[in-house]
């Protein structure tokens, strides 16, 4: 296991070191000490390594992640795992606004609460929040799954495309074109898998599913000539 202490190693050196780990590296376990809320920590990783950040991070931690597993033992600032492509990011504490924004793939687990705009414009990422999410979560979400074990704030799923939203608790309000949908067996299966992978103690049957009413966006075949 390699340890990097940010009290002595500059952020850019740390990121450069992590970014140069190739797919075949045998240095797979990394511990980052004294993050002290630093921005852009462990970003742009592209190797199957495991990075544990001991403390809390600032803006954009684990952004653009590919393959790597990034585990933050504290809380994360705005934009954690933004535009993640694959891999896993786990936040033990809370995450600030727009967690997992625009993510294309991988799994983001927030064990505390996520603030506003969680999963905004998500494009295939799976996000599991053990606590609550704030307002405007999954705004314009295109694909992927957002699982909320607690409550959701105002305007959940506003202008939603084809992402699936699962909420166990209350939803303060649904956004434009977001409706509750039937929970079918295949959705329970997706949920069971995500909850297990995220270490969330909840039963899939306790959740409600929300999705797009498909009234706001229409790729209707009859209109193909108009596009």
């Amino acid at each position: 296991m390699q340890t990097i202490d940010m009290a002595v190693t500059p952020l850019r050196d740390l990121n450069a070191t992590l970014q140069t780990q190739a797919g075949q590296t045998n240095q797979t376990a990394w511990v980052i000490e004294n993050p002290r809320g630093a921005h852009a920590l462990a970003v742009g990783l592209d190797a199957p390594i495991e990075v544990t950040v001991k403390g809390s991070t600032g803006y954009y931690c684990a952004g653009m992640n590919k393959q790597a597993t990034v585990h933050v033992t504290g809380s994360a600032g705005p934009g954690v795992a933004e535009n993640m492509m694959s891999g896993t990011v786990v936040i033990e504490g809370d995450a600030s606004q727009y967690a997992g924004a625009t993510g294309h793939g991988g799994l983001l687990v927030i064990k505390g609460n996520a603030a506003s705009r969680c999963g905004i414009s998500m494009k295939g990422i799976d996000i599991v929040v053990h606590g609550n999410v704030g307002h405007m979560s999954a705004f314009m979400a295109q694909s992927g799954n957002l699982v909320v074990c607690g409550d959701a704030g105002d305007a959940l799923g506003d202008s939603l495309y084809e992402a699936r939203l699962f909420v166990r608790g209350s939803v303060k309000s649904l956004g434009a074109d977001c409706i509750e949908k039937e929970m079918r067996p295949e959705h329970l299966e997706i949920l069971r898998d995500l909850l297990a992978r995220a270490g969330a103690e909840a039963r899939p049957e306790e959740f409600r599913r929300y999705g797009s009413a498909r009234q706001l966006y229409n790729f209707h075949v009859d209109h193909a000539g108009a596009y």
Partner: protein
Amino acid sequence: MCGIVGLFLKKDELRPQLGDLLTDMLITMTDRGPDSAGIAIYGDEGGTLKMTVQSDTPATSFAGLDAALSAALGAPVTMRVIDTHAVLTLPEGSDAAARSWLAERGIRVMGSGHAMEIFKEVGLPRDVAARFGIRGMGGSHGIGHTRMATESAVTTLGAHPFSTGADQCLVHNGSLSNHNQMRRVLTAKGFAPQTQNDTEVAACYISSRLAEGASLGAALEGTLEDLDGFFTFVVGTRTGFGVVRDPIACKPAVMAETEDYVAFGSEYRAFAKLPGIDTARVWEPEPATVYFWER
């Protein structure tokens, strides 16, 4: 942008370190706004009225100021000059008389009260804090701000914190869009802002509500109804410390609480050197929700 920090001590043991802790917190936020910086610090009360004043020409403006003001008020006045600022101690009830006397001499009043002193200038937090010796100041609570100017000029009077009532101060990250209309409303009520700055309007709004008898909590709730725009406000009073964010809550905010203190920061980085931060409860204040602590 703009960076805000605040620290409210629950126990007296940390009082001597308040200025030192706040200075480090504010310096960490420098890259959120390099235009000007300021700190309001609630220190020891000497049983008299304190007034913090400022002049761009302190050597001449402050020379003999205490004696002249003392003669004008017919009561003793003491003065402690710190760089471009001076803290005057005045007899009770002389606030208005002193303000008009100082205004005639072109001396600016930063704020007044029994506990609060305000120091603010154009420049980086590191330099502003050093000029005023903030590190050496103790107290019960304090609020700091580093500004990236949007709504008014980069001047001393445009710097935060703004104080528009005794022992009251406010700092702001964001921008208000109805401040001109609100300025007219407040002016009609006798709470005319002194600058073109939007944040001062918010400070005047809270002062006007408090003067009408509202609690600080109610006054902060009122900002959600009556002020339009983006804001994270942190306010201080003689005994209290409050936080409110607008319903959209774009402007970042994080809080930390231990048995010893409540801390506010625009970013977690501001907390990194606080004692016991590793085991503190850290959370993001909810949108459109008033938080308030009282000693």
